[in-house]
C-alpha cells in the first residue's frame, strides 16, 4: 500500500482504533453506567471519523453526518434514556454475563479477526482508498461486537446498547462505503434511531413496572414447557 498517507487519514485510523477499543469495553463492562459511557465514547469516535474523512475529501455530507451523530448519539440518546428510566436502573451493581469476561473477550478477539476477513473482499472490490482499509474492517468488527454484546447480555439497557453499537458499526463502515449519502437520509436515519431509543426505553420501563426489574433474562413466560 502507498506509504504516503495524509495526517487526516492517520488520525482517522487512530479514531478507528479507539472505536474498536470502546466496542470491546462495551462487551466487557460490568456496570450499566459504564456501558452507557463507553457507548457515548464510541459514538464520539464515529463522529470524529466522519469529520476527518469529510475534511480529507472535502465532503460537506460527511461533516453533516458527523454533526448529526454528535447531537443524536452523544447528547440526545443518553438524555432520553435518563429521562425515561427510573434511577434505580443506574445504581452501581454488577450485571450478569452469560459468558465470563475473559472468555467473552477472547470471543470478541476472534470476531474482530472474522470481521477483517469478511471485509477483505469488499475492500478489494472497491479499490484502494486509505479510508476504506480502515473503516470497513473496523466497522464490520464493531458491528459483530455489537451483535455479540446483544447475545451475552440479559439486561435491557446493555441489550439496547448492543443494537445501537451494531448500527454504529454499520455507519462506521458506511463512512467509507457511502461518503456521499445525502444528509436528508442521514437525518431521517438519526431520527429513526431516536425513536428506537424512545420505544425501547418505554418498553423497558413497562417491563420494570410489571416485573420489578430490567433483567430481561427472567422473561421466560412464553416457554411451552413452563406450564
Amino acid at each position, binding site marked *: 500500500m502507498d506509504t504516503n498517507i495524509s495526517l487526516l487519514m492517520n488520525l482517522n485510523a487512530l479514531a478507528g482504533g479507539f472505536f474498536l477499543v470502546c466496542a470491546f469495553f462495551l462487551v466487557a463492562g460490568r456496570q450499566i453506567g459504564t456501558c452507557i459511557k463507553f457507548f457515548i465514547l464510541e459514538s464520539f469516535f464515529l463522529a470524529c471519523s466522519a469529520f476527518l474523512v469529510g475534511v480529507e475529501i472535502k465532503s460537506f455530507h460527511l461533516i453533516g453526518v458527523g454533526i448529526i451523530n454528535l447531537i443524536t448519539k452523544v447528547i440526545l440518546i443518553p438524555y432520553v434514556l435518563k429521562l425515561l428510566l427510573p434511577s434505580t436502573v443506574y445504581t452501581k451493581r454488577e450485571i450478569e454475563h452469560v459468558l465470563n469476561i475473559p472468555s467473552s473477550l477472547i470471543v470478541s478477539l476472534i470476531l474482530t479477526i472474522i470481521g477483517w476477513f469478511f471485509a477483505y473482499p469488499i475492500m478489494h472490490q472497491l479499490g484502494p482508498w486509505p479510508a476504506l482499509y480502515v473503516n470497513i474492517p473496523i466497522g464490520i468488527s464493531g458491528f459483530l461486537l455489537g451483535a455479540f454484546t446483544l447475545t451475552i447480555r440479559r439486561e435491557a439497557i446493555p441489550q439496547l446498547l448492543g*443494537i445501537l453499537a451494531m448500527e454504529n458499526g454499520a455507519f462506521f463502515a458506511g463512512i467509507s462505503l457511502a461518503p456521499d449519502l445525502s444528509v436528508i437520509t442521514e437525518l431521517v436515519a438519526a431520527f429513526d434511531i431516536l425513536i428506537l431509543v424512545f420505544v425501547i426505553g418505554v418498553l423497558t420501563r413497562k417491563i420494570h413496572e410489571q416485573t420489578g426489574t430490567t433483567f430481561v433474562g427472567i422473561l421466560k413466560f412464553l416457554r411451552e414447557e413452563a406450564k
Partner: protein
Amino acid sequence: MSILYVLMSIPIFCIIMCIIFNWNYYCKYITVIGALFIFLIALYLTTKLNSSNLFIGSKYGLIGIEGFGIVILLLIGFVNLCASIFSIGYMQIKSKRLIKRYYLNYSLFVFSMLIVPLIQEPNVVWIAVELTTLFSVMLVGFENTNKALEAAWKYVVLTLMGAGIALLGFLILYAAAKKAGIENYTWTGLEKIAPALSPILVKTSFFLILIGFGTKVGLVPMHTWLPDAHSQAPSPVCALLSGIETSVVLYVILKFIPIIQHVHGLNIFYLILIFGLISTGVAAILIIQVKDYKRLFAFSTVEHMGIILVAFSIVSYSGNISGMLQIIAHAITKSMCFYAAGVVLFLYNTREISSIKSLIKNSPFVGIYLLIAGLSIAGAPPFLVFFSEFSIIKSALYSRHYIMISFLAIFIIIAFFAIMNHISRMVFSKNNIKQNSIYMDNIPISMKIGLLLSGLPVIIFGIYPVWIYKIAKIAALSIGG
C-alpha cells in the same frame, strides 16, 4: 403523483384529528374512515395500471409505485379496513386512555407500512422497514401482561438486530451502485445499471439483506420471535402483522430479483430456494405440536412465507405470477384467520386449543367461520390459497423442478393435516360441560362485520379468480416478467 402523497398523509391526518381535537371517543371512527379512503385510493391506482403502463409517479424520484407495490398497497388497504372495523368491538371494553394510545400506534404502524412500497430509494426503504418494527412494538405489548411484554421485547430485539444486518447490506449495495456509476439511486436505476454491478458486492449485500429482513419475515431459523409476537398482540394487530407486515418486508427482498437477474455471472436463487424450503418444512412440522390456536396461525405464516420464496425461486414468469397470487391469498386469508381467532378469544378468554370444545354447538356462526378459515389457510379447494398453491406446483412442473416440488408438496400436505387436526378438534370435539349458547353469541356487531368482510374475497376469488389473476400478472411483469 400527487395522489400518492395524499395516500401517505391519510394516517397522519387521522392522528392529527385525534390529537389536536382531542376526539378520544371518535378515534375509532376516524380510523375506519381513513382506512376506507386508503383502500379506495389503492383500488383506483389498481385500475390505472395495465401491461403497457407499469409505473405511477417518478421512476427516478423518491416517491413512485409499480405493479408489485400496488398489490402490496391494495392488501394493506383491505386488511387495514377490516382490522379497523374489527378493532371497534375489540377495544370497547378498554379504558379511554388505552383506546387513544392504541389508535395512535395503529395509525403510525399503518403509515410506516404504506410508505415502504411508495418509496423508491433503497436506503430510505430500510428506514421505513425499521419504522414498521418501532411503531408496532407497543401494539404487540399492548395487553401489558408478562407474556405480551416478553413477546414485544423478543420482537424488538431480534428484528432490530436483523435491521442492523440489513443496514450493512444496503450500504454495500450503495457502494456497489456508486462504483458502477449510477445516476439516480432508485430501484429502477439499480435495475438499469445491474449489468455493470460487481457480482461479489451484490451477492454480499443480498445475503445480508436476506438474513436481516428474513428475520422480520420470519424465515427459519430466524423465526423464533414470530409465533410469540403474532400470538400475544391484540387480534386486529395480529392480522396486520401476520397478513401484511411480513409481506411488506418480503416485498423489499423480492425487489432484488430483477436486479440479480441482470448481474453478470450471479446465480443466487438457490439461496432463496433453500430458505423457502427449510421455512416451509420446519413450520409444517412445528404446527403439529402447537397448543395455542393463535400460535398455530403464526406458524402457518412462516410456512406461507417459505412457499412464497419457493415460488419466486422458480425464476419464470408463471412462477412469479403464482408467487404474487400466494402473497395476495396469504394476506387475505391469514387476516381472516386471526379475526376468527380473535372472536374465539373474545368468547372463551383462553388461547389453548384443548380448552375449546364443540364450538359449532356453542356458537354456530363462529364455529363455521373458524372451520372455513382453517380450511382456506390450509389450502383446501375452492379457496384462494388452494388456487395459488396449485399454480405454484404447476409452474414448477413446467420448469422441471421435480425434486423441489415433491418436497414442497409433502410439506404442504403435512401442514394441511396438522392445521385441520387442531381446528376440527376445536370445532367438533364433544364437550361434557354444557355452556350457555345465548351468552356465546354475544359478539359485538363490528366484529361480525369485520369477520364477514374479511371472508368475502377468500370465497369469491377462490371460485372466480380472474380479477386477482389479472393483478398478479401485472405485478409479476413489474419484477422482471
